[in-house]
């Protein structure tokens, strides 16, 4: 499936997913975000074992603030409702997969 559009309305549900969660904080106007977007989309398609969500920081400033996001893209891995890894900047696919597996 494709990456879920995360809003403050569905965030609790995503966060408490039984699967490991990958969140991609992005904005439409940010070049590196647009680099990482297709990679995140691929992971969503190819890896049903993960819940993959994307969060537009312009539309969801509260969520961005909640995670202390000041750089985009920011990629967050959550397990059991807790943040395991949070990393700023675009990453190649292999590195994102390693974050999810780690």
């Amino acid at each position, binding site marked *: 499936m494709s990456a879920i559009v995360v809003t403050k309305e569905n965030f609790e549900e995503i966060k408490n997913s039984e699967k490991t969660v990958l969140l991609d904080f992005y904005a439409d106007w940010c*070049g590196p975000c647009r680099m990482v977007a297709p990679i995140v989309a691929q992971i969503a398609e190819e890896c049903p074992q993960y819940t993959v969500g994307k969060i537009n920081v312009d539309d969801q400033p509260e969520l961005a603030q909640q995670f202390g996001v000041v750089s985009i893209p920011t990629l967050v891995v959550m397990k059991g409702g807790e943040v395991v890894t949070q990393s700023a900047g675009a990453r190649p696919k292999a590195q994102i997969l390693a974050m999810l597996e780690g």
Partner: protein
Amino acid sequence: MSRIYDTVVIGGGPAGYTAALYAARARLSVLVLERMAAGGQMTLTGEIENYPGIASIDGFTLGMQMQERAEHFGAVTEYTEVTAVDLAADPKRIDTWSGEFYGKTVIIATGADPRRLGLAEEEDLVGRGVHYCAHCDGRFYKDKTVLLVGGGNSAAADALYLSRVVRKVILVHRRDTLRATKIYHEPLMQAENVEFCWNSRVAQILSDKTVTGAILENTQTGEQTEVACDGVFISIGRQPATAFLQGQVALDDAGYIVAGETTETNVPGVFAAGDVRTKSLRQVVTAAADGAVAADMAEKYL
């Protein structure tokens, strides 16, 4: 799938995809190895207004279009990171996360990355107040004060951009005047929310979870002063992405591949195109020009 190509291009920025375009149109088999996505450094640029014939375009879109055109003529892209090369081998071997690839010729177009200040705390604070892309992250500092480190063209452009989106910009530069071309000076000097700290370098970035300030050192007197700020934007130039080439091809002291306008390196059949090469002007258009030359040289070599 055969993993031997006439030309393997390392890096998918304007140099790489122009090389791929020209090589593919010359009927060579071409593989582009790209770490993340097409475009390279220009994806960080919101607006490119000096690419001939195009009024204005964002770097990401231009990168995608260059890739699309090269692939239209038969170039193939593999998204992977190069870990090591053996350029003396025949064919030349390129090790990547997705296995080995071979090229009868290799065009290196890996470009450059933002240069770090080199402070111990710097890497750890990336994403928590230390930034290398003003256009990406400036907007998060709307009502805040930020430091902008640097004095060249990119720094001046970044400072000007930041002055429009943040409350206050403190420009820190190690000289007593900007190195940037004159076109930037006046608007910067006129911006009411830009303060200048001349003859200064950042000695330390202060943080409490996120950045809270910095200690500046006067380059003349050595005197240290503390300034409060919420973010530090670093714009002190680029460093070439050539770490994986150590011992394989001649590099200059700054790490750039030694190659002239023909793009030929000291290794036969290996060419260097774009920002990664020793050259005087690093622009999208000069990178593209290098790509065309490199592809032509590769064709002649074959």
